[in-house]
């Protein structure tokens, strides 16, 4: 019950990497969930808001505590029963409330992945047809992608004019997906 009285991780994140808004078909209640994901694909921060019952609040609090620090893959594998266990049980008729939190996390991860895929796809497009300005700098080097995140891309093998390469790529990405994506060069 402490998770209901003093819910952990309630609130919203600025510029979340993944965001979800879900509703429970059972009761019509709703929840939003935000995640920040670090470059190791771990959940660095997580926050929820809910228009839901005490069970939903407690379950979301528990879930976010469990998920924090996990890799996305680990977090995606959290089972509903783990939440219930974490809370020390949940009445059967409140099961759907914990499911709502569970759904919210899945959706936020999906949202993160969708956004990451969009960034990756945009980046791949650029690499498939490298803009002349960039080709001139790179010569015959081929950029290696170290890591893609919806908001940042880490790359290597760009030669020495790192600053310029990053600038050009950031501009191209901004054009393609309409969001600022940071380009870091390893």
């Amino acid at each position, binding site marked *: 019950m402490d998770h209901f*009285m003093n819910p952990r991780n309630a609130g919203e994140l600025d510029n979340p990497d993944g965001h979800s808004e879900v509703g429970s078909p059972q009761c019509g209640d*709703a929840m939003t969930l935000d995640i920040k994901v670090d470059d190791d694909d771990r959940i660095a921060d997580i926050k929820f808001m809910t228009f*839901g019952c005490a069970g939903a609040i407690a379950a979301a609090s528990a879930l976010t505590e469990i998920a924090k620090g996990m890799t996305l893959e680990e977090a995606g594998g959290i089972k509903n029963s783990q939440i219930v266990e974490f809370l020390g049980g949940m009445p059967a008729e409140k099961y759907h409330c914990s499911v709502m939190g569970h759904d919210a996390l899945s959706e936020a991860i999906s949202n993160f992945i969708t956004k990451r895929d969009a960034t990756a796809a945009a980046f791949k497009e650029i690499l498939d047809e490298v803009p002349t300005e960039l080709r001139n700098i790179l010569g015959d080097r081929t950029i290696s992608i170290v890591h893609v995140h919806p908001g940042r891309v880490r790359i290597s093998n760009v030669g020495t004019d790192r600053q310029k390469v990053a600038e050009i790529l950031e501009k191209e990405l901004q054009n393609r997906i309409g969001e600022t994506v940071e380009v870091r060069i390893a």
Partner: protein
Amino acid sequence: MKVYLDNNATTRMAPEVLDAMMPFFNDQYGNPSSFHTFGSNLMEYIEKARQQVADLIGADPSEIFFTSGGTESDNTALFFGGETDPEKPGLITSVVEHPAVLKTARYLEQAGHPLGLVKVNSSGSIDLDSLEDLVSGKTGLVSIMKANNETGVIMQIKEAAEITHRAGALFHTDAVQAVGKIPVDVKAEEIDLLSLSAHKFHGPKGIGALYARKGIKLKPFMHGGHQEKGMRSGTYNIAGIVGLGKAAEMARNFISEEALITSALLEKLESGILKGCPGAVIVGTEAVRLPNTATVLFINVESEAILTLIDFAGISVSSGSACSTGSKDPSYVLTSMGISVADANTAIRFSLSMYTSNEEIDYVLQELPPIIEKLRKISPYA
């Protein structure tokens, strides 16, 4: 502090009622229908209780039949009211009735009784034009509640009864929430059948009554040993009946003297909530309401979460009608008034009684605003 503001669900039994009942749990345990004096002497207590109940609603004692509660009275009224005249199979009730009426009506509909449902307007009172449109010569029974359990809205019973009678049908009212709280007069309001339940006005649980106007042809609902003129058989629950009688007697005093106190406390609660919880909306303010009931929408804040937090603070209230399942359907009473599902899911019902004190209201007004504030902070809508 413990504060009980769920008196529309059930009430604290008056100590005077328990005192009146005690002899019948102890050595006065006979069966009033017996031949021997040990049992038959008890019949006078049954008849006294019948008189007390009759007096509360302006009826004649011969028109009072004891039942096991409001649900049974409602079921009985609809079952035989809907079957007295085969030429008039039609049944009409309103969309905001208690399930004891509404589900029985639905059952009878499936059994072949055409069912009409009277709408309510945004204030929560029934739409008399809608009733006027629905009644016809084929209508056997119209059932409209005297006061709604969730909103406390008091319906226009006399007008509804007049429309019903003009169409030649019988008029039933579920007065479970009204009897004992406000004056009810079956003669003045032209009521043919009325349901009441003791535990809603400080009487015991498991006992109620059905008023049936003299001259109505009754059909037995519970067949057996011929108690209650054969209408409602079963060994007399004498302690329960005596308790109901005593509660009825006390309620007459309450209505004439103490209802104003309750009403003042309710006003204090309402204005305190409106001040302390910005965005709160009281339901049914344009209608006349019971002196003890307020349903408040805490827009954007989910009601079950409120209930849980307020319960921790020792305050018992409810969201809509008490329901024994875990399901959380939005209150059909509220949505039928045009309130959105989302808003209906923010409703909390406060229902007071003659035992509610000023200190209790103060305590609620101290505890509630921070709870609402806390939940609003984590609401995605607010």
